[in-house]
């Protein structure tokens, strides 16, 4: 049987999407309840262990999910080979930067 690479990517997009949806609902409710309008509460929210861990999961899911989505867009609309390669590399680079940046933000509080 052929290795199901395309299927795994299809699944990955859905699983990362679902993980982010759960995070959004969780954090959304916390924000609604705590209503952090001043710096102290806002900072405290991001300083807890679980929030950092959950946000890390969110960020990693986001990077993968966004990559799969943007790749799809590039395949459909950017046909010239050079432009396609350049944009693809730009997207990958940006996402890598965002991942590292997010982790720095989370762990330097």
């Amino acid at each position, binding site marked *: *049987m*052929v290795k*199901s*690479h*395309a*299927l*795994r*990517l*299809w*699944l990955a997009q859905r699983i990362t999407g679902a993980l982010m949806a759960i995070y959004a609902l969780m954090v959304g409710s916390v924000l609604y309840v705590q209503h952090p309008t001043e710096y102290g509460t806002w900072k405290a929210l991001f300083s807890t262990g679980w929030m950092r861990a959950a946000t890390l999961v969110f960020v990693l899911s986001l990077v993968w999910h966004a990559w799969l989505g943007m790749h799809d867009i590039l*395949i*459909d*609309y950017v046909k010239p080979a050079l432009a396609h390669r350049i944009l693809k590399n730009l997207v990958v680079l940006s996402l890598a930067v965002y991942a590292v940046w997010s982790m720095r933000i989370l762990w330097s509080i």
Partner: protein
Amino acid sequence: MRLSIYRFNPETDAEPYMQDYDVALEPGDKMLLDVLLRIKDLDDTLSMRKSCREGVCGSDAMNINGKNGLACITKLTDLKEPVVVRPLPGLPVVRDLVVDMTQFFKQYHSVKPYLVNDEPPPATERLQSPEDREKLDGLYECVLCGACTTSCPSFWWNPDKFVGPAGLLQAYRFIADSRDQATDERLDNLEDPYRLYKCHNIMNCVDVCPKGLSPSKAIGKIKELKLKRLTK
């Protein structure tokens, strides 16, 4: 009745253009095809495909007021004037309303749309229970008109790589057939990132199918089968 029809003659025209017509209808005219044939009486140069005039051959699929359909079963009373008639989107235009269906049929053939069963044929027919036969309903009726596939944006952007709604519907027609033994190979055949997975459930195909079929549903079942195979 006023119409605006897409014209392109490769021998004389550099670019396609829209030509307006005003046609006097006869009492018997009920469908768009009747009017188009009446136009041919006035202007013999208008080219189109047509045959059965009853919605079973699939020849006269075209884009009517923005939506794909079969001209022979599109009621005049359902059409707002001026009626804008254009060829099926996304396929190369040979002339006027005639498009080159090569890519469409290439994708269709690529799914091996025939029964694969290596067992020697029985004396009578290969038996199939009524329940198993029911599974082919909504799949076998496709007339390969191309309305669905040419309404699909994923097919517009990747006609050489994405099989498209019609091809995938037929792929499932044989996957679902109890007499077919090549299910695994058929599913393997749809493995690359484009052939099947370029379907993003846009569902234009279901919206336009003149036979009321749902390629989306069939494609959903294929995706489900592939998922099940992964976890086996």
